[in-house]
């Protein structure tokens, strides 16, 4: 028996590792280990008032803090049957786009690209390829500018509150964002050039089940209440109220992240899943970029998630521009949040965080204090699928050199863009 161990997975958020045990040529076991400490936020927020829930649970993860905040607000508003204004809906979608641009740019340029080009970090890569790193930093900054302008802060936004926004942005602020996004259009094309120039990563093929939010207008990270799972042309829909059917009820000793399956099979969430579930998004500049990346659906290679993120940089910038034009045409109102009238009940919200499906579900008492809270994060949902793809990559690797196997496993792990502090938050036991 030989063992391949990646003790500390680098260039990802949080603390995790990979262990693969080989018996001869066959793979005996594969583990994605999570070493993140348990913060126990779900039971700790019990008794907290509804207006404190989003700012507390946002702290689950910095990179996805806008998604956690907005998903939390959507769940609370669903519990109290609150309907926000169309302007609030647009501003929330815009915040999601800003977060996605920042997160994808950080991941593609600073965390994933160094693997393809054999650098240990983007800092090392900057010495030889300054233009690529500067492009990544510029796109990242654009995403942060959107989050700061709409959310009040790039990390742990403060301006989004139950019922709407503390203070909506001004016309001048939106015009400034628009000029940044115009540069972002050219930059997102350059991002496709950068991705297309990287060597192919063709070492893991697998049938994969993909799951993503089915959004009413086919392109929303925020609206919608149904998850669609797609595999081999078969489609199935899970409603928000039945979200628990997406997760197994299994805690495992090596990880604080519970493993999930759909009808007994692991599934993948994230950019690649979003494009697979909502393929009608792939028109215009996206269709051209797809050809340049040699990207085809359905994909059987998890490394294609990196290409899917690059494609989303294009659609995120386009959608953000559309929203700003729409807001400027309608005139931005300095409106106050919709009044909240707490009542006893349960609310569930499903959205698309940068790395995939995010679910918050709360039960409140009549005074508007939390009775119970469940949070299911994309990295927890992806854990089982990551292990499946680690296994396939080792099985398909003719070379038994530990260094070769190790590098491939790390590249697959990073392609999932895992957020390991997120992954420790999971369904409370019923």
């Amino acid at each position, binding site marked *: 028996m030989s063992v391949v161990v990646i003790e*500390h997975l*680098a*260039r*990802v*958020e*949080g*603390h995790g590792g990979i262990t693969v045990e080989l018996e001869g040529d066959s793979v005996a076991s594969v583990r994605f280990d999570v070493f*993140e*400490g*348990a*913060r*126990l*936020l*779900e*039971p*700790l*927020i019990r*008794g*907290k*008032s509804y207006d*404190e829930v989003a*700012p*507390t649970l946002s*702290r689950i*993860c*910095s*990179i996805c*803090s806008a998604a956690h905040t907005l998903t939390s607000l959507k769940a609370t508003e669903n519990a109290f049957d609150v309907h926000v204004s169309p302007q609030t809906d647009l501003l929330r979608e815009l915040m999601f786009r800003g977060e996605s641009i920042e997160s994808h740019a*950080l991941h593609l340029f*600073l*965390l994933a690209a160094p693997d393809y080009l054999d650098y*240990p*970090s983007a*800092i*090392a890569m900057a010495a030889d390829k*300054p233009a690529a*790193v*500067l492009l990544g*930093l*510029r796109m*990242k*900054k654009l995403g942060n500018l959107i989050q700061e302008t709409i959310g*009040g*802060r*790039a*990390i*742990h936004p*403060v*301006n989004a*509150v139950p019922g709407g926004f*503390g*203070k909506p942005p001004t016309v001048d602020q939106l015009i400034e964002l628009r000029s940044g996004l115009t540069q972002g259009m050219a930059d997102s094309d350059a991002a496709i050039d950068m991705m297309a120039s990287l060597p192919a990563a063709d070492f893991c093929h697998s049938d994969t089940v993909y799951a993503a939010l089915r959004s009413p207008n086919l392109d929303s990270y925020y609206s919608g209440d149904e998850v669609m799972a797609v595999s081999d042309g078969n489609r199935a829909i899970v409603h928000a109220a039945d979200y628990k059917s997406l997760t197994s009820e299994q*805690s*495992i*000793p090596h990880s*604080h992240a519970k493993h999930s399956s759909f009808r007994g099979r692991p599934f993948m969430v994230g950019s690649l899943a979003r494009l697979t579930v909502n393929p009608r998004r792939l028109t215009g500049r996206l269709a051209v970029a797809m050809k340049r990346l040699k990207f085809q659906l359905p994909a059987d290679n998890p490394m294609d998630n990196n290409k899917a993120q690059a494609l989303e940089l294009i659609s995120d910038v386009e959608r953000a521009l559309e929203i700003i034009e729409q807001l400027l045409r309608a005139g931005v109102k300095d409106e106050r949040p919709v009044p909240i009238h707490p009542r006893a009940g349960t609310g569930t919200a499903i959205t698309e965080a940068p790395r995939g499906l995010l679910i918050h579900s709360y039960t409140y008492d009549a005074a508007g*204090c939390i009775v119970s809270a469940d949070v299911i994060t994309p990295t927890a949902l992806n854990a089982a699928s990551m292990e499946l793809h680690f296994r396939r990559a080792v099985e398909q690797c003719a070379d038994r050199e530990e260094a070769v196997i190790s590098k491939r496993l790390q590249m697959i792990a990073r392609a999932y863009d895992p957020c390991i*502090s997120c992954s420790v938050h*999971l369904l409370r*036991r019923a």
Partner: protein
Amino acid sequence: MSKPTVGIFGLTGCAGDQLAILNCEDQLLDLVALIDVREFLMASSENDTECSLDLALVEGAVVSERDAARLQAIRKRSKALVALGTCAVWGGVAAMDRGLDRRKLIEEVYGPTGLGYDSIPAQALHEVVKVDLKVTGCPIEKDHFLAAIANLLNGNAPIYPQYPVCTECRMLENNCMLVERGEPCCGPITAAGCQARCPGLRVACVGCRGPATDFNAPSLVAMLAAKGFDRQRIAARLRTFAPVEVA
């Protein structure tokens, strides 16, 4: 002169303070030219985990024996250790559990398997090792981080506001969330440095930067109680990010 050696570390938290460093998009490449970053697991796969360091920047709280052992090892190899962010400085959101039965909470979330997990009550860094500089904030302000590096490179310690958010808020002429709008604003006891970001957006302060020096929690509680807020609710609000006792 050789460049100072630096390590950037995350214990248990949301990685928001490391992300705040990476969010210095306009300064990042200049910054890494001035210092020699030897260990930064979130950004690099080539790390020297043994070398001695002039400066260790540590975010997150200590919530496991593993965190405590890592922190002690970092302290041993570092000349100066900086606590980055509210979790490192105060314990942060994970420290809300003070006084609760941690084993019971773990079993509730993870089932019987959870009882085998390495888990201890959340602590700030200074409760485990000596801390040379505290930079609070959830997350830290980019300007405070850059000021810390610039000062430390010149052998100085940066100076941060000791006064509460209210002082900044009044200077910006915001409407008072507490007095004028009757909302449970934590501004009077929370450390300034955020330019009163939340009240400026008509949102009450949640206290994410932790307490100001010489804060007076009982006085705030009395004022909120007089406005009709439930004492238990106020106590829970004040201890979200730091162990503030209100009695």
